[in-house]
């Protein structure tokens, strides 16, 4: 029947079937509603962007709020009404920071601490991930499960025994010169234990086709050569993500460095800057200067590599 209707246009215009009638009416109603809604849609949109912008201001505002205090005399902060732009801008705070505090040393320590932790983590985790993904050995699943169970162990929960372990190793001959409280390795090694990377690397290596691995074995390559020449180049993206993640987490860490590096020689930036905020008196200008100087380079690097950063932070959420 439907075929008859469509083949004859006159029938269509003269006597539209009832369903069509309803459809047209519906379309008209919808169009009218659409016109009425368009205005409110517009204002909604403005409101939405206003809210988003407000939160962006809140997100980045505090960093900008450091700029003015960093370049002025601390006393002038307390004038009222406030003087937003310093009348006598000065670099005194920075001069003080570099000459009278350990800032440079802290920065270098932080780079060593976070850099070595990252490299160590990448090396050990990719190797372990390879073993779990590719090598068959008895007890593999049990071992993996035990390691994974420690995924979330908080630093605070093992703070005392870790401190004691490092202290104990520090008392041993020879090795104690390298690993102790107030040494780089004493700082680094306990920061490089999280199984997250092992887990990530295993997942990633498992997705590589078996054929590659088998072809390489038949080509005469041993496990180490397969690992370095085939696997590592192919998981480079995962390594970058893990590397950024570990670096960001390590340089921002506070509790372990606070405990493990008490002297100025091994103090890192987070602990150092926190120490600038005195218990009773604070040199606001120096504190602002140090904080600002610390976040600017990270921000610049971030803006260049934002995609990687975002991925890295999601990796931290155990994204599956």
């Amino acid at each position, binding site marked *: 029947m439907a075929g008859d209707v469509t083949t004859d246009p006159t029938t269509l215009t003269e006597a539209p079937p009832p369903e069509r009638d309803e459809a047209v009416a519906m379309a008209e109603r919808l169009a009218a509603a659409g016109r009425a809604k368009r205005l409110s849609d517009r204002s909604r949109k403005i409101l939405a962007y206003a809210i988003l912008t407000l939160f962006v201001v809140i997100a980045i505002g505090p960093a900008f709020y450091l700029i003015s205090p960093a370049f002025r005399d601390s006393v002038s902060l307390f004038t009222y009404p*406030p003087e937003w732009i310093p009348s006598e801008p000065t670099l005194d705070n920075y001069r003080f920071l570099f000459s009278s505090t350990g800032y440079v040393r802290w920065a270098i320590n932080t780079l060593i601490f976070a850099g070595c932790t990252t490299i160590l983590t990448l090396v050990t985790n990719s190797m372990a991930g390879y073993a779990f993904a590719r090598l068959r050995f008895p007890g593999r699943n049990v071992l993996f499960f035990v390691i994974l169970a420690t995924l979330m162990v908080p630093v605070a929960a093992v703070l005392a025994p870790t401190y004691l372990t490092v202290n104990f190793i520090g008392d041993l001959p020879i090795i104690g010169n390298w690993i102790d409280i107030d040494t780089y390795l004493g700082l680094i090694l306990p920061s490089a234990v999280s199984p997250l990377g092992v887990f990530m690397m295993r997942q990633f290596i498992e997705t590589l086709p078996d054929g590659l691995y088998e072809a390489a074995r038949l080509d005469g390559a041993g496990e180490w050569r397969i690992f370095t020449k085939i696997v590592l180049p192919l998981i480079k993206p995962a390594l970058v993500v893990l590397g950024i993640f570990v670096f960001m987490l390590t340089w921002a860490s506070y509790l372990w460095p606070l405990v493990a590096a008490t002297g100025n020689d091994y103090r890192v930036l987070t602990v150092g800057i926190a120490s600038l905020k005195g218990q009773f008196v604070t040199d606001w200008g120096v504190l602002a200067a140090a904080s600002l100087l610390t976040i600017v380079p990270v921000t610049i690097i971030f803006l260049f590599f934002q995609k990687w950063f975002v991925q890295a932070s999601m990796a931290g959420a155990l994204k599956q």
Partner: protein
Amino acid sequence: MTTVDVPVHEAADDWTVPSLSDAEYRWRARRYRLRTVRRAAGFLSPYLVTWGVFLAIPVGWGIFLSFNRGGLIRGDPRVFVGFENWTRTVGDSELRTAVKNTGIYVVIAIVVVFALAIFLASLLNHYKKGSNFYKVALYFPLLAPPILGAIMWFFMVNFDFGILNLIKRTIIGGDGVRFLGDNPHALLTIVSVEVWRGLGFWVLFYLAGLQSVPEELQAAARIDGAGKWRRFRRITVPTLRPLLLFALVIAVIFNFQLFDSVQVLTDGGPRLGTATVVWFIHRRLFKFQDTGLAYASSIGLLIVVLVLTGLSFWLLGKRRQREA
């Protein structure tokens, strides 16, 4: 037409090389299989040694320590005290305050940050124009270490020149608010700082979840004339629910460990108003007072986190099962 005699099994005995005896075959097969163990050991040992010495051993040692006190510094020898630490955890008022504060903090922080994050994520999901800028900007607070974030807010909430007090004085008049000096302001300030820091992460997290809803489904709902609220309840909530539970567990695990900002902003004060569990542990340990109680609370913290970890794996497993 040819007929050839091709035996299915060419007689094995004709061949010159003798077969291995069963016993020898099994022994050699076993030795051959074990070579993978050696290789695995080579690849695993760097991680296993670091993990074992600096994580596994400390966990075990920590459990043992929870039945002791002292032993952190030379002048204070370790003494075995049995269950004393554990019984005292119940009665210690400072610890109780710390647990209570941590609980309040965890609940408020997570509720606020999740509500804001889901709201902002659905805005970003709907208004896609320029969303990349907003995502990047919202992510910014995560770049700074928690310590630096706290210090930024130290300036913002200062009694004399902090912008919040400047605004308050200008608009409402009167005296400033002692954001860090009074209770419960201090704890709420800490909550705000942590919400500010975590918001970007959770926005991205939920945005990823929302974007996993097929476009067609959203569009279909829109054509059906489903209202905004209905659409939110019928489509957004069901997609986010499994995510939400998992996120909740993770968020509890992380927030339970609040320490950095407390330490720089208030050092637990005023009058323990911002004392948290980790702050308590650190203080007891490294002021070298009552270390036994700190040992026991460390393990308490460990147990809570392990249970939550197990829960999160279980949730993940369930989700994966459902997807399969």
